[in-house]
């Protein structure tokens, strides 16, 4: 292991054992499972190692006690999300329909609908979804993960684009320009998160 303690004493808190070895060195050897004949037999090194072993095993036993490991995680989650909901970042307003209609949807709300549409393609998971308003349309940059087993990645990307366009058109009335779909990763299996997500 790198950066092990030096052979000579540099730390004023270190101790040179009567056998000439530094305590820091003896403990580092124990920690890195470095064995040598001296330590195994030395009347000074062995008790020093025993001290440390006793400390480590006792504190771990205490750490594992049930009282040390039960927390009210749910209430922490609730308190965090209460604060987060007071500090939402909805993004920019995007134009809906024709300019004359003067309707807007917030970027974050639109992105949520488009990600969901992309995920209707089997096995596809959507990540970043950025929406940039242009003169008359909104451009989309969407990153997705597809299953590793996908036989035709390009076809999947095209299907994602089709669904996103359809959702923007029919569900939102959002006029999209370019839809940039990036397959950023091919992953072994779909992550089990949907129930988690919908419960919050």
């Amino acid at each position, binding site marked *: *292991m790198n*950066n*092990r*303690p030096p052979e000579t004493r540099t*730390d004023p*808190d270190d*101790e040179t054992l009567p056998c000439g070895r530094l*305590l*820091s060195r003896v*403990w580092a050897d*124990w*920690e890195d*499972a470095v064995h040598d004949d001296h330590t195994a037999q030395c009347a000074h090194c062995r008790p020093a190692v025993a001290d440390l072993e*006793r*400390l*480590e*095993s*006792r*504190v*771990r036993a*205490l*750490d*594992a*006690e049930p009282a*040390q490991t039960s*927390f*009210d*995680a749910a*209430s*922490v*989650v609730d*308190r*965090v*999300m209460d*604060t*987060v909901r007071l*500090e*939402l*970042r909805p*993004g920019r307003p995007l134009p809906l329909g024709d300019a004359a209609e003067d309707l807007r949807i917030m970027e*974050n709300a639109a992105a*949520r609908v488009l*990600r969901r549409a992309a995920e209707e393609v089997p096995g596809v*998971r*959507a*990540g*970043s*979804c*950025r929406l940039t308003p242009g003169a008359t349309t909104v451009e989309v940059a969407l*990153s997705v*993960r597809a299953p590793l087993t996908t036989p035709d990645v390009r076809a999947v990307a095209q299907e994602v684009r089709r669904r996103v366009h359809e959702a923007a058109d029919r569900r939102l009335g959002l006029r999209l320009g370019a839809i940039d779909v990036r397959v950023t990763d091919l*992953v*072994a*299996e*779909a*992550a089990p*998160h949907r129930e*988690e*997500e919908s419960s*919050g």
Partner: protein
Amino acid sequence: MTGSPARSEPPDDEALRVDDVLMTERAAEGDEDAFAVLVRRHAPALLRLAARLLGNRTEAEDAVQDAFVSAWRRLPEFRGGSSFATWMYRIVTNRCLNVLRARRPQAPLNDLPDLPAPAHVTAPDRITEGRAALHDLREALATLSPEQRTCWTLRTLDGRSYAFIAKTVGISEQAVRARVFRARRRLTHTLGAWQ
């Protein structure tokens, strides 16, 4: 390292890691539902970490709560150089380090209220050996510097490598080793009565 301390992290699951990346991207773009998924997933491990560092459940809950809120505010600048889990681990550790630093008396002449007697003095019959040992350990830990205590906790209780701790706390690996050594030295000395 002998033994295998239970690390304060969720199961090492590839699918969950991929999902974390997606959820972090979404949360960074303002999707609070994605952030809620991350908070629910990582809160238990981070609470365990904070409780180990602070030795106090209420303070641990406050530290983790503050860390998540701070993460939500900083997410738009998060570039994904590390995983969400590692990033949060760092925020929580440094938050706890600050709590430990604030605990140390600022001025020695401050009037301090009388502290209640330790439980094992007032109720001798009901105290198990384990609780007394825990009390002794807490007292011994309180004598460590915040930096020693933090490095020692991450190493011994959370089973982290010296390199990982160095990165988390933002000091050199050599400095981490020195702090862990000093903490062990003091703890083996103070807890000699356990022998």
